[in-house]
């Protein structure tokens, strides 16, 4: 089963992991990834604001999850992604995947993350004491997508 949630409210990664795990049917391997608001290397982050494209966000995440379910032998997949204003240390998003075999659970979670980073319509802005700035896309994130394009 695939679950997609886009929400402003904070969520509890541990509760998500347990709820996901209770819903599993016969999967022996479960992988989760949680993204957390962290400070900039130079410090001083006050908050993070995430803008998204309501409507397109849900359909993009649904499509990415459907592709993961098709590529790997998964039993379940979950994507939770927040928008709005987030404080340092808060969870930003998470993905979880479950499969009979660990290789499928790992690969699909990484695939979801790589696609979500660069293909789901979210934009992050950092607020520091001296001002605010949009987070720039990283070339590494774009390159991370390439490894999935050769495989089918």
């Amino acid at each position, binding site marked *: 089963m695939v679950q997609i949630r886009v929400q402003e409210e904070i969520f509890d990664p541990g509760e998500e992991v347990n709820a996901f795990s209770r819903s599993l049917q016969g999967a022996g391997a479960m992988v989760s990834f949680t993204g957390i608001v962290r400070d900039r290397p130079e410090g001083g982050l006050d908050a993070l604001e995430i*803008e998204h*494209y309501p409507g*397109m966000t849900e359909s993009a995440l649904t499509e990415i999850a459907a592709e993961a379910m098709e590529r790997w032998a998964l039993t379940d997949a979950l994507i939770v992604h927040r928008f709005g204003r987030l404080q340092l240390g808060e969870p930003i998003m998470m993905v979880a995947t479950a499969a009979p075999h660990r290789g499928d659970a790992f690969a699909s979670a990484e695939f979801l993350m790589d696609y979500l*980073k660069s*293909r*789901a319509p979210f*934009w992050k*802005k950092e607020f520091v004491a001296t001002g605010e700035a949009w987070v720039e*896309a990283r070339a590494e994130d774009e390159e991370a997508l390439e490894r999935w394009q050769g495989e089918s």
Partner: protein
Amino acid sequence: MDVLYFAWVRERIGLPRERVVTDAATVADLVEELRAREDRYAIAFSDLSALRVAVDQDLADFGTSLDGVREVAFFPPMTGG
């Protein structure tokens, strides 16, 4: 059609969305029309390589036809996750 702007595109243009009546055949044609309107549009659309576009909520490119399209969105490269 509805034209939507996100992130710094929205900030530069000063609007999150607007209704545009146009005969533009492609996204690129629409961009030309918008650029000709005012400086803030010209500035927002000055470097297309820094922009991404979605047509009816699907990622598209600047050559995409606007035939029958209801919604076009412009935004910088996405930074989710």
